[in-house]
């Protein structure tokens, strides 16, 4: 009896999944993993000879496996609940927040970052008042000391020593873990009032705009899919103001908006802020007549912050050096005597290879 049960259940599982894999239509993209899936490979003699066909088929079989996300979830549960490992693919959950381990400090990367900023200053920003700040990633606020984390004190100190001629704005003390999404790496726009106040204190502006909250339920952040665990999604709140109605947004020479609500419910709903990653965005505020302009060199954290600064400036230019090199920047941006804010997260500073020359 036992022999028959084992035999038929084995055949049922391998045969059943084979049939399901064959009859289930292939998917182009994975929303949970935020990547495109391998489709059925082209098979010809050349592709077979160089084994590309086989390698692609192996990847195809993995990517298109039915219930792929469920299996990934099963794996995560086994890793955490059976093996009691502290992370699964460097992802771990603590107090309802999903974290991705970033470790250790990449000294070369930190130095490269400093050099790039220095070069930027000496080539383009000779007549500007330059401020810089480092956004701590949410692991900074992780209370459990067992996890491997960046040595933040060293990182901050190295950057501050390297950029001592620029004015530094400390943000660590005005943020807390609650200011970040549970399922995403980014900070929450609706909780950045203290950050805006701190920036204003040092950069010389006072922001007193009244905002109304717009809420998008079911925000599945970048870590949600990687964790492969059934956790509660976040609420994504974006702040609207009457002042924003007249704001003109230019996204790399195309008309755009502060909040691109088409992005809500897309692969990355955080792209609602300034339409996501983009090399160059210009925001003009006709209501603000002070003529002040601000250039922000930023990563994705800056997208949700910029709308909160626009009431204090006539124009904000956001430059993302991950997507634009300085030669292109030279052609598109005129450097005058604008205020400059260099605003990067610890994650980017520790992986500065992505900043273009």
């Amino acid at each position, binding site marked *: 009896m*036992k022999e028959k049960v084992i035999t038929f259940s084995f055949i049922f599982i*391998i045969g059943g999944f084979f049939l399901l894999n064959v009859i289930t239509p292939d998917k182009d993209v994975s929303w949970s993993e935020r990547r495109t899936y391998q489709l059925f490979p082209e098979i010809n003699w050349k592709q077979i000879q160089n084994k590309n066909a086989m390698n692609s088929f192996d990847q195809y079989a*993995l990517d298109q496996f039915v219930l792929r996300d469920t299996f990934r979830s099963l794996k995560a549960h086994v890793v955490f609940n059976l*093996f*009691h*490992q502290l*992370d699964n693919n460097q992802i771990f959950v603590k107090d309802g927040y999903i974290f991705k381990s970033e470790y250790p400090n990449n000294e070369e990367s930190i130095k490269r970052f400093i050099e790039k900023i220095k070069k930027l200053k000496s080539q383009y920003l000779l007549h500007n008042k330059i401020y810089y700040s480092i956004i701590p990633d949410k692991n900074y606020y992780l209370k459990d000391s067992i996890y491997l984390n960046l040595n933040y004190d060293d990182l901050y100190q190295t950057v501050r020593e390297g950029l001592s001629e620029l004015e530094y704005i400390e943000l660590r003390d005005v943020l807390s873990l609650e200011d970040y999404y549970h399922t995403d790496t980014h900070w929450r726009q609706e909780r950045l009032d203290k950050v805006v106040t701190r920036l204003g204190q040092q950069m010389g502006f006072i922001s007193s705009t009244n905002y109304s909250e717009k809420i998008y339920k079911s925000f599945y952040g970048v870590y949600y899919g990687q964790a492969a665990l059934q956790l509660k999604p976040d609420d994504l709140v974006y702040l609207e103001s009457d002042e924003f109605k007249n704001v003109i947004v230019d996204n790399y020479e195309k008309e755009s908006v502060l909040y691109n609500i088409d992005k809500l419910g897309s692969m990355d709903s955080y792209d609602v802020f300034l339409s996501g990653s983009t090399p160059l965005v210009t925001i003009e505020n006709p209501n603000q007549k002070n003529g002040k302009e601000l250039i922000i060199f930023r990563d994705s954290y800056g997208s949700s912050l910029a709308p909160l600064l626009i009431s204090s400036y006539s124009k904000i230019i956001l430059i993302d050096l991950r997507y634009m090199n300085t030669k292109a920047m030279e052609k598109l941006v005129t450097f005058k005597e604008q205020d400059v804010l260099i605003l990067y997260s610890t994650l980017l500073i520790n992986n500065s290879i992505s900043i273009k020359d």
Partner: protein
Amino acid sequence: MLFSSVTFLYYFLPIFLLIYFVIPSKGKNLVLLLFSLFFYFYGEPKYIWILIFSCIFNFYMGKFLEKNFHTKKATYLFIFSLLVNFGLLFYFKYTNFAIRNINSILGLNIPILQIVLPIGISFFTFQTVGYIIDVYRGKVTCSHNILHFATYVTLFPQLVAGPIVRYQTVEEELRKRKTTYETFSKGVGRFVIGLSKKVLLANVLGECCNAFMGLSVPTILSTWLHAIAVTLQIYFDFSGYSDMAIGLGLMLGFHFLENFNYPLIASSITDFWRRWHISLSSWLKDYIYIPLGGSRVLRWKWIRNILIVWFCTGFWHGAEWNFILWGLYFALLLLFEKIFLKKFLQNHKVIAHIYTLFCILISFLIFNGEGLGNIGNEIIHLFDFKNLPFMNHETLYYMRSYGVLFMIAVIASTPILTNFVNRLQNKKWIIWVEPIYYMGLLLICTAFLIDASFNPFLYFRF
């Protein structure tokens, strides 16, 4: 193709089993041969001709040898077939090693050849050479059916990573074999256990090894944990593959001999080699050690025989000096044991186990190491209390993270679990619990495979 791949488990295997069991008995070997060739072709399309050549060449050589049994012609043919088989192995596996060493010793600049090692060549060469030797000696009658012989050489369950199956082991089953629910279900159980050893233990231990190797500051504790993890990883990787091969064989009605017998509980290095990669050590014993005279010769000749056999063992594993060093390390340990330690180890069981485990641990650092300098450093680090901290935060993190895995792996490397399961066989509920256990493991392994992207077997490089 890897056994531990979705392609094998959920495409190749169901299609193969369906056709294999639907087709009448007469056609089963043909189906097995075709699928085995496809299995090999999928992983090594360029070198399929070597496998096909090996089948045809050794089949006819066997016939010629038998026809000319006990004649001079047979000896010439025998030498010729050894030269061809080993020639292929040496060309693909050792040419660049030889060039590198000639360049280094003579200061020459002979260009390295663009040679890729065909998967499994070490295994199927040893199988065919064993067959040729046995036919030449008259120990087995040669195969008269090329389909049977080619099926034996290419048999996909053991084709690429062993165990080294002797012709006489499966000769009868190549002609006639029976699959029952009992053999099939036993095969399933064995296969799933092997898959779990590979996917759930060896692969995760591999991650653990990388973690300990990648520490920004190594510690005494991390170097020890790394050494233990390497040992367990290699054991579960290779024994897992052997279990899968034996399990697949059983599903098809073949009974391969055991290749591992809990080597990590050995009480001496001699004992360890009776339990580790049994098919290779018995092959080397029967085809090299005994013909050289074994131990029944003058002492210096016996020492020479041991050194030759263990040099071959090391060199078989790879064309690198660390493998040769690994083999000779065991030769010295075995000589030392046989001459000085034998009685002491028999009378001091606990010390014997600690001594054996320590020697095994060092051996796998040699086996796994890259470059003799690095190996030396790794071994020195185990005792470098002067320069290395005993432990740090990183070590503690990985220790905690992989602690349960270590415990499971250590227990699984002993017969404790098997004995426990065997004791439960009479219970009524085992009828349901055992299938659930196996299928649960299969699904968990599938989950791990789906989540991972790259998953090669360590023994494939041999």
